[in-house]
């Protein structure tokens, strides 16, 4: 035995088995105790509960939801809500970050001062405090009867009301897809060489593609119109409350505003870092070739800066996606809140936590995969790499 312990290979094997074995048995023991405790409360483990009706309402949903719907449907609603909030938050944070970041790299001292104060103030205040703050601001707005109104938008304590279209939900989704295609298709036509070699040959195809998809969008909208209603649905005061229009709940607005402001301050620093990483020689070379300032920015500085920022930006996006879980603080029904409510109502603790982990793992991994793909696509190829 003693000689076996002095043998390095044997010692290593024992160490590894001990380490993995201890961790594994700890997890297993926790799992068994939890199952026993839950069984004592009359909760059977397993994923059968996913098919049972929930019996409680969900506060925000893009899909039809009622208490008779099963749990798996609610989890799906939660994931879609998280992605919905996350995509709004990411886009608005990126816009804020781009503006502030450009201000921070500008040659103008005053713009730099403004950008720097913005970053210093909002980066150093916890996100949850900002969420609470904006939620309080919106819920303290005047009631619908004495609300601020401009161009059909109404700011009230019950949320922000915007004009909407009297169109079926599916048609709206289809039209949105067509609109995205109207932007994406011409870009794709411009990139590929499938439709002729020169840009002039492709210009007409680009225009045709854009026109066709736009016509498609209009067609879908007109088919999906709800009968006997005007196309534009404006919010209007009826009794004590507003009728019509689209109501954006206060908690959603608060979350998007807070994520945009807080995330924007982080993204601004990433943008600044990206522009600072562009070597001075490149810009000087472009200037000496006689490019205009706009050309230097759009053809030289921006593409190079984008390459430097993208990996860090991807991490920041994943972080912001996880920050949507703050929804539970103000009552927005994101994925995590649905999981927490499930644990409260059904007691299926272990399974719900497992689903939560799996859900976030999938969201994070797919975001990372998308960004890796983009990163690879825009990375400088071998012959483009010059010091």
């Amino acid at each position, binding site marked *: 035995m003693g000689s076996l312990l002095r043998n390095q290979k044997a010692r290593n094997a024992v160490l*590894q088995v001990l*380490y993995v074995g201890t961790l594994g048995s700890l997890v297993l023991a926790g799992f068994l105790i939890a199952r026993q405790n839950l069984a004592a409360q009359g909760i059977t483990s397993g994923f059968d509960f996913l098919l049972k009706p929930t019996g409680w309402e969900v506060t925000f949903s893009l899909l039809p939801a009622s208490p008779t719907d099963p749990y798996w449907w609610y989890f799906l609603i939660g994931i879609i809500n998280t992605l919905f909030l996350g995509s709004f938050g990411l886009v608005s944070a990126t816009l804020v970050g781009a503006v502030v970041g450009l201000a921070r790299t500008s040659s103008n001292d005053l713009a730099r001062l403004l950008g720097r104060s913005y970053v210093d103030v909002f980066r150093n205040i916890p996100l*949850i405090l900002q969420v609470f703050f904006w939620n309080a601001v919106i819920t303290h707005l005047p009631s619908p009867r004495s609300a601020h109104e401009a161009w059909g938008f109404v700011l009230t304590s019950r949320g922000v009301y915007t004009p909407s279209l009297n169109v079926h939900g599916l048609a709206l989704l289809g039209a949105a897809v067509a609109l995205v295609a109207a932007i994406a298709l011409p870009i794709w036509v411009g990139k590929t060489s499938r439709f002729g070699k020169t840009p002039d040959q492709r210009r007409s195809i680009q225009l045709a593609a854009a026109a066709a998809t736009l016509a498609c969008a209009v067609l879908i909208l007109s088919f999906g119109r709800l009968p006997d209603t005007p196309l534009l649905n404006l919010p209007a005061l009826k009794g004590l409350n507003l009728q019509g229009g689209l109501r954006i709940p206060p908690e959603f607005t608060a979350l998007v505003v807070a994520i945009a402001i807080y995330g924007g301050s982080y993204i601004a620093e990433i943008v600044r870092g990206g522009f600072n990483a562009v070597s001075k020689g490149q810009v000087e070379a472009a200037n000496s070739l006689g490019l205009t300032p706009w050309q230097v920015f759009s053809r030289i500085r921006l593409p190079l800066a984008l390459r430097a920022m993208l990996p860090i930006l991807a991490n920041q996006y994943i972080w912001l996606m996880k920050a949507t879980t703050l929804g539970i603080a103000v009552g927005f029904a994101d994925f995590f809140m649905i999981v927490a409510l499930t644990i409260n109502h059904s007691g299926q603790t272990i399974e719900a936590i497992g689903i939560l982990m799996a859900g976030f*793992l999938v969201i994070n991994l797919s975001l990372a995969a998308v960004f890796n793909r983009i990163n690879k696509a825009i990375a400088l190829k071998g012959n483009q790499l010059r010091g």
Partner: protein
Amino acid sequence: MADLAPPMPGMVEDLRRRFFASSLQSLISLLCLGVIAFLGWKLLDWALFSAVFGTAGGAEACQAAGGACWSVIAARWRIILFGLYPYEEQWRSALACAVVVAMTVLSCIPAFWTGRRIAAIWLAGTSAFYILMKGGVLGLSHVGEEMWGGLALTLFIFVATCLIGFPLAIVLALLRRSELPWISSTTGLIIDAVRSLPLISILFTFAIVLPFALPHWLQGDKLYRVIVGSALFFSAYQAEIVRGGMQGVPHGQEEAAMALGLGYWHRISRILLPQAMRNALPATINQFVIAFKETSLVVIVGFFEILASGNAAYGTGEWRFAYVEVYTFIAFIYFIFVFSLSRYGAFLERRMSVGER
């Protein structure tokens, strides 16, 4: 000898060159100047000129004034800072906060940057904090953890998170770079799993779900479970930072130590870690800053830390309208802590890059 340097531009010329070089530049300058003047005036007017400071007029006088109502802070600052801590004993809570601040300042001084001194400062500071808050000895009356609140609770969670999380991070980083494949891959799995989860879900699991999975004698108070959870989260991120620092240490260093016949512990503690920590210092400070901001998340699992006590301070009675002032006050407290820490981090980064040049 004739002065060959070009003549210095005058002040007007200098301003013209810096802010009005072209029409676009002038436009941007004027726009920024307008925004700065407008925001600055509005903020000063709100926070100082039109504000009400004393509690004399009560809430009504305050609401009638156009500016900020700092009376709410004057009336409720004890709730915000100390939470539900017994009124006569609140000096202990204040003193405990001062201990934490002193401890943080001390550990920012390079003279204390040896493993032993840092550990001594933090252990002594934390025990002083704990004794002051909990009492029961030295003639201090006993105050249970459920009465702790406000700034003291925030600081306690932060300090305890760092105190547990930092050594754990070093251990995790060492395990991850272990040469034994099972150990490194299992540790990597743990670190990556924790990093892919949102902190709230981990806090929630530790506060509410874990009691099901633990035998009774191991459950402990909810506060300590949450601290362990947040320490685990902190250590997963910090472990990657420490590992990055270790990768920055040239391989020759460890090989030289091996050639000199040093054992594993000496190699790690005398050669590898001191250099790795130096490499990792800026990122570490950044991680501390993030950890401090993230203590605010415990409000979701039902703790009465500074954010929750702020909600309570304006949530009841006549101060219901004064939410902006309360949140501004709390944001200011966070700002002081976080901003000074991150400025310190930036200073360190500059200082260290000077040494490398």
